């Protein structure tokens, strides 16, 4: 308790006060300076201050008062220690594990897309969202799962809210999985389309991973470090070789693929990779991408501190009115679904109720791992925002606007962007493309190329040289594509298991995961699901991301809303009614956001926003026998209309799932209010002291 006393001394209090004032000053500079570029360090410093203060004070309140973490209570890792799944683990080691599991492409892409409104709205939402919703959600779900033997979110919801709620939650999780895989695959397709250099390096990861797999299986079993180091060296060699491939006319032609070809290749890859034995391709690729991911995040943080770039994007752009070219819709609610991961991500509820709770050594560690882990993810999101807004806005909009808006040439694009009030010349656009070793930067949507140019610019400030910019750009593309592909093959596998479980209810033999028929059938179904949305995104007139990213954001926030509704119910069942607001306030916000975003996506009369309006636009034109771009035949017109109706259906499904879970949550909560004792179904108390370590 010595630490607590020092913290409470006058000196400690004054120190925190000074820290808070400094943080507020940084935030003030970021928020109020207008007309001239702000240095990124102000933004990073403001973010660090907010996150630190939130950790010190709010997470402590959550830990000590609202959740009342009990370090005397034995965790599942202690009670059920088996040396394999349940292992009491040092909290720093577990923090690393947890962070590696939650960090993905989401916090990198969302903030880049949100940058069209300027850096301020995104920053404020990331910070407020993570402190009161995202980190709080991860922490409370980790807490609940730790008190329930490390059970998954679906199982816990089934137990606390009833069987129906549990099944509906599972269906929701499967739906979000499909959309997630589709939208991430689309990001990769957009990044690699017409880019022989990028396509070659990403394709090279497949033989590299297979070599690592064989190495770890047969040559030197279990030597992760050696295999990963060899893999990393080969990866860098493939980036170097990619430059030569792009420079050679014949090789370049072989690796120049358009969106459709890439999406078919990805669909085939996803199917094969998830069916093959995991040690062969999936696991080694996972190792590479995990280490590359953590390493790159560290390098990017260092580079931002060294390069200290200026933020070129204005604090707030004119596109907060909803007319932006990157994605359509007003600040409320669409900013809050565009940045999902990084502020609050429902997916983390699955990770927090996965392997982490089985390894928590002491309940008190939940604060650092659950809350602290998510704060680090928010910091990654802030860095992505910095990388995107450090670009010239003209370049940013050239890369992120659909081709239909920009026109086909650099001249037309420069003119269109200048009309929005952002200065850019055709020469700047051509020069940037040449610097990064690509033929064009126009309409490279999806966030990944933008982030890659931003990262390349920052890294180039630190280590520059002839051709380094192009090297860094393709390094950044590889880094993003690599872990997205890992998510795709591993996600397809998880989706397959879920489908097998659901189908097993109808026809029992389909549940056998060892049977090849069941395996291939369920994998095919899963791949067909995300492949459908991927392909529709590739042929979408607005460039796909425009349509699918909000749908993904809504789905992800829906999952977060479900997890938080569950958390509210648990708090009431624990008779902590006084503190239920810690979960109820973010729940209310998320329910309002997802429902209003769904409503607009369904019923907005603007065809750029509303699915139904857009479907009718195409259906009406088809009925009149007219063709609307990009459709080239009446059949394509009908398909676009159908796809929009399908998206509308999915949106309705998400909204209904939230409402149903809300109903079951309220019902369980009111039932709990009527009893005088706590009714939460935790595993019985066992004193940690009674278990020998």
């Amino acid at each position, binding site marked *: 308790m010595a630490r607590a006393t020092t913290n409470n001394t006058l000196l400690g209090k004054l120190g925190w006060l000074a820290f808070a004032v400094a943080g507020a000053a940084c935030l003030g500079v970021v928020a109020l300076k207008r007309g001239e570029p702000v240095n990124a360090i102000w933004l990073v410093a403001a973010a660090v201050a907010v996150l630190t203060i939130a950790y010190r004070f709010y997470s402590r309140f959550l830990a000590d008062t609202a959740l009342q973490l009990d370090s005397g209570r034995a965790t599942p890792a202690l009670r059920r220690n088996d*040396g394999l799944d349940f292992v009491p683990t040092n909290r720093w080691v577990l923090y690393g594990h947890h962070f590696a599991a939650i*960090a993905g492409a989401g916090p990198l892409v969302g903030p880049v897309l949100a940058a069209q409104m300027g850096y301020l709205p995104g920053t404020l939402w990331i910070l407020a969202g993570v402190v009161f919703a995202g980190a709080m959600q991860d922490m409370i779900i980790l807490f609940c799962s730790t008190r329930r033997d490390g059970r998954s979110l679906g199982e816990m919801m089934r137990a606390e809210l009833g069987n129906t709620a549990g099944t509906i939650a599972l269906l929701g999780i499967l739906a979000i*999985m499909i959309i997630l895989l589709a939208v991430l695959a689309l990001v990769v397709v957009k990044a690699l389309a017409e880019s022989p250099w990028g396509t070659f390096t990403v394709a090279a990861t497949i033989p590299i991973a297979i070599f690592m797999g064989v190495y770890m299986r047969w040559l030197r079993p279990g030597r992760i470090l050696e295999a990963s180091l060899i893999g990393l060296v080969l990866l860098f060699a493939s980036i170097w070789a990619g430059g030569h491939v792009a420079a050679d006319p014949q090789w370049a032609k072989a690796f120049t693929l358009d969106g459709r070809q890439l999406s078919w290749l990805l669909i085939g890859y996803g199917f094969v990779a998830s069916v093959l034995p995991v040690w062969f391709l999936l696991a080694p690729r996972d190792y590479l991408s*995990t280490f590359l991911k953590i390493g790159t995040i560290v390098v990017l943080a260092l580079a931002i501190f060294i390069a200290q770039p200026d933020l070129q994007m204005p604090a707030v752009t004119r596109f907060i009115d909803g007319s932006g070219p990157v994605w359509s819709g007003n600040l409320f609610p669409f900013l809050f679904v565009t940045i999902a991961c990084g502020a609050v*991500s429902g997916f983390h509820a*699955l990770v927090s109720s996965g*392997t982490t709770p089985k390894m928590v050594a002491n309940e008190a560690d939940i604060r650092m791992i659950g809350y602290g882990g998510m704060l680090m993810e928010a910091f990654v999101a802030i860095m992505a925002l910095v990388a995107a807004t450090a670009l010239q806005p003209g370049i940013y909009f050239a890369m992120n606007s659909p081709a239909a808006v920009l026109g086909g040439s650099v001249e037309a694009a420069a003119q269109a962007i200048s009309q929005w009030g952002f200065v850019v010349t055709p020469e700047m656009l051509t020069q940037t493309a040449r610097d990064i070793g690509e033929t064009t930067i126009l309409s490279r949507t999806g966030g990944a190329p933008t982030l890659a140019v931003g990262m390349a610019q920052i890294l180039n400030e630190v280590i520059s040289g002839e051709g380094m910019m192009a090297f860094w750009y393709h390094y950044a593309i590889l880094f993003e594509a690599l872990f997205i592909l890992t998510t795709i093959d*591993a996600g397809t596998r*998880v989706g397959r298991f879920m489908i097998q479980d659901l189908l097993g209810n109808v026809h029992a033999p389909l549940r056998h995961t060892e049977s090849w028929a069941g395996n291939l059938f369920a994998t095919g179904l899963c791949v067909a699901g995300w492949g459908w949305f991927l392909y529709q995104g590739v042929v979408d007139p607005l460039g796909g991301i425009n349509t699918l990213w909000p749908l993904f954001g809504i789905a992800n926030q829906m999952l977060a809303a479900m997890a938080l509704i569950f958390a509210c119910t648990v708090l009431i069942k624990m008779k902590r009614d006084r503190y239920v607001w810690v979960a109820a306030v973010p729940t209310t916000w998320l329910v309002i956001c997802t429902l209003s975003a769904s409503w607009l996506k369904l019923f907005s009369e603007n065809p750029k926003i509303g699915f139904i309006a857009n479907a009718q636009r195409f259906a009406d034109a088809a009925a009149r026998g007219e063709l609307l771009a990009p459709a080239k035949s009446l059949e394509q017109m009908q398909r676009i209309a159908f796809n929009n109706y399908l998206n509308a259906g999915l949106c309705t499904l998400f909204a209904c799932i939230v409402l149903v879970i809300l109903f079951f949550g309220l019902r369980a909560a009111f039932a709990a209010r009527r009893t005088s004792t706590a009714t939460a179904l935790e595993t019985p108390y066992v004193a940690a002291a009674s278990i020998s370590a």
Partner: protein
Amino acid sequence: MPPTTITVLRACWRQLCETARLAVGVPDYGSYLRHQRERHPDAEPLSYEAFFADRLAARYARGRSRCC
């Protein structure tokens, strides 16, 4: 014995390796051996290679999710 720089660095490196391994789903083999020795002294513990293969299978078994 007072901790020297070397022993501190060595401990840091060990913890870093343990973190990196756990990040890809392979828990500490030493802890597993200790656990087996204490709780199941009669059973033959898995070799590191078998332990690695077992954890690899568990990481991608049904129901594991990962983030966006």
